[in-house]
């Protein structure tokens, strides 16, 4: 008798506490899990498991630790950096069944939720108390709170209201050895090190998030959105600095260039001026009188900066419509291009003009169109490279160009990722942002949580070996960054 395959042996162990329908073994069933929101990177997982309580998660992790099988946790699978890309020899741990809101405490303004709860579902559930959950990544309709924590997701309102790390108070986590911890607290701090901050944005490398307590904020009295159209992107960028320099902190300050405007308009019919070179969306919130004053001030500033048209949303519906187009801007690219590759660099805001012109040059050199969507208020740039994965070689050129854009961001004092995470996609660029000693320190942090290195290995923090190879690759152009990955 031959020994059972690792897959069969694992499945056998899991069957002791999971129903058959929660263990996906056949290739047909595993295939749809081979990628997350970044579908150019695909890897077939060894096995997919769908637990529905914390005890099951602990048992899955203990068994995997015992058998030295790596584990990748996944929420809604909407990530854009390949953070939930499975491993061919690893278990994919889906937390999508953890989708219940456990408790809402209106007086303390917190909600205890399971990690698979959708970001937007939290705000919907607490709306009757006049509260909401502030971070609103563009994918908020679909992305899960567990994934938001793992990536420290941002959104269009984080200039004023912060990122995920600023809006959660407590996490339940399970480490690779099956131990359950609570980090943070239901007060405003916890004793010891700030593990809540460390876990946030750790991309599933330190522990599996099994519960989240989020902070809720009162819904502002009034909010108003201005839409300004520009015939050139540079004055639009200047306007951003002028608004902030005037002491106004908008709730959201977003910029889109012409290709992005056209794609978003095709979906949302928001009335964006399709011939503008750039539009700025500026949301102001607060008390009625304050918003009225600020709207007038911002309108004046925008006009001074050369906006050819400034529109103020007529009512809540039009305001929602203005945002709908912006929030759907990424996937709306599907209307003008079969594939898009989304970058996520951050830059000091005043360097915007040179970065945009650098991107334009790269776009011309590579012959690949780029649409730019920009969280202008906080310097987070999302160039979307448009390509067709069905054309041989085009993905490779796209990746190369994307890498150059990120290096440009680092060169002007920015970062390779503002909110999407490093994942698989930007792992090589980590080598240009961090020194060997810094990366070594990060590996030491990982080892403190997961000494065997079984949780989401190979993501977020590159090995020094990989960086050495990446350095070499710069010399030998034309090599693929990830030869082991199956790709289009």
């Amino acid at each position: 008798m031959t020994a059972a395959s690792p897959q069969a042996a694992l499945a056998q162990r899991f069957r002791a506490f999971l129903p058959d329908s929660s263990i996906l073994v056949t290739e047909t069933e595993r295939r749809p899990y081979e990628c997350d929101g970044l579908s150019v990177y695909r890897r077939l997982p060894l096995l997919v498991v769908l637990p529905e309580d914390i005890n099951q998660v602990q048992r899955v992790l203990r068994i995997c630790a015992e058998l030295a099988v790596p584990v990748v946790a996944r929420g809604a699978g909407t990530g854009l950096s390949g953070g939930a890309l499975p491993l061919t020899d690893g278990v994919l741990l889906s937390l999508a069944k953890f989708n219940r809101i456990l408790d809402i405490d209106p007086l303390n303004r917190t909600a205890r939720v399971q990690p698979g709860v959708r970001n937007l579902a939290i705000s919907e559930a607490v709306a009757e108390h006049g509260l909401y959950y502030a971070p609103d990544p563009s994918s908020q309709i679909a992305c899960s709170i567990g994934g938001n924590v793992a990536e420290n997701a941002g959104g269009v309102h984080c200039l004023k209201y912060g990122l995920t790390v600023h809006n959660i108070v407590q996490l339940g986590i399970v480490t690779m050895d099956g131990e359950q911890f609570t980090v943070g607290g239901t007060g405003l701090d916890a004793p010891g090190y700030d593990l809540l901050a460390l876990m946030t944005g750790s991309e599933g490398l330190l522990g599996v998030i099994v519960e989240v307590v989020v902070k809720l904020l009162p819904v502002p009295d009034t909010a108003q959105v201005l839409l300004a159209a520009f015939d050139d992107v540079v004055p639009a960028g200047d306007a951003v600095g002028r608004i902030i320099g005037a002491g106004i902190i908008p709730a959201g300050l977003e910029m889109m260039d012409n290709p992005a405007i056209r794609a978003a308009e095709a979906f949302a019919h928001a009335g964006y001026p399709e011939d503008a070179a750039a539009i700025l969306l500026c949301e102001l919130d607060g008390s009625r009188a304050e918003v009225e004053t600020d709207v007038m001030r911002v309108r004046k500033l925008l006009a001074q900066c050369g906006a050819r048209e400034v529109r103020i949303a007529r009512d809540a519906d039009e305001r929602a419509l203005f945002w709908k187009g912006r929030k759907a801007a990424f996937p709306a690219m599907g209307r003008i291009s079969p594939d898009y590759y989304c970058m996520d660099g951050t830059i000091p805001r005043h360097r915007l003009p040179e970065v945009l012109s650098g991107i334009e040059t790269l776009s011309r050199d590579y012959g690949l169109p780029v649409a730019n969507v920009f969280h202008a208020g906080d310097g987070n740039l999302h160039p979307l490279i448009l390509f067709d994965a069905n054309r041989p070689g085009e993905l490779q050129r796209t990746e190369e160009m994307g890498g150059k854009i990120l290096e440009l961001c680092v060169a002007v004092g920015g970062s390779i990722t503002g909110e999407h995470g490093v994942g698989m996609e930007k792992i090589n660029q980590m080598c240009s942002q961090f020194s060997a000693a810094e990366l070594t320190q990060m590996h030491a942090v990982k080892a403190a949580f997961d000494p065997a290195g079984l949780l989401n290995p190979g993501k977020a923090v590159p090995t020094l070996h990989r960086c050495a190879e990446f350095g070499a690759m710069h010399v030998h152009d034309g090599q693929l960054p990830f030869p082991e990955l199956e790709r289009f």
Partner: protein
Amino acid sequence: MNADQHERLAEQLRDAFEHQQALRIRGGGSKAFCGRAVQGVALDVRGHCGIVEYQPTELVITARAGTPLLDVQAALAEAGQMLPFEPPQFSPDATLGGVIACGLSGPRRPFTGAARDVVLGVGMVNGRGEVLRFGGQVMKNVAGYDISRLMTGAQGTLGLLLDVSLKVLPTPVCERSLRADMDVADAIVAMNRLAGRPLPLSATAFDGEVLWLRLSGAEPAVAEAMEALCGEIFVEVEELTGQQFWRDLRERQHRFFSGDDELWRLSLPAASPALDLPGRTFYDWGGAQRWLKTNAEAGAVHVAINKVGGHATRFTSDGAVAQPLSPALAALHQRLKQAFDPVGILNPGRLYEGL
């Protein structure tokens, strides 16, 4: 003053690492009482000072750890900006590094965030004497683990801070204080109900008899809120009295803090009812931070705070003693300490025994 001494500091740490020599990191010495007493050779960071970069329209300031807090605040004030977390100083000698290492925040904390919330990046030296940089000078940065925030409040036990980049905000144009007489149960509910309304609140506190509110923001926003609240049970406080009250609370100079009983800091869910403990209590942060002057046994305080899911810090003549961690969490802390400071030279024992 502006001096870059990071090489000297790193050299001293490398030396200490080789000789396994424990160090006691110090700045202005204003917050020595915020942790446990440390045995070690003093390492003074004050020589490494100065503002490295500050562009008001970027809303970011970067300064060296030894820079006096007052210098940082003066530079910001010139551009009409401020540190959003309203840090306590405790002495004019306070340094920026000390403030961040201790992770202390003032009355504004529930509304504009804590020290850790505004930390964007740090330069640091770890326990091997290696100079490392994490985070950066941009608002959003998720490349690698968030070690900058991990450093905040770690009291120098994981690394020596060289410089920090902080997010800053425009100083509110207008600030007014209000007060109302109330009993404790009503005050706790009132503070939390108010925080659930869209008001420009920047502090709420209860001193045992009076509920204090502070409103900050644009002129019209504050005026509108004043109108709404003064129609209820609040009355406006004279401007200087208000400023004095919030400053005294922040600096722990309020008369509440005097007296012989032991001082405790309680951190708990804001709306928790008053704890059944002897002594006097002062409520800050809308009830989420409570100061307790009591002669109760430590055990009794811990039992009471555990019931509501918070933690307590006790201020003794030997320094501040934090609530013990669960064994599993304590072990994780030990492993993290080991990851940054393998031979234990950085402020050993400052947070907990062995940390």
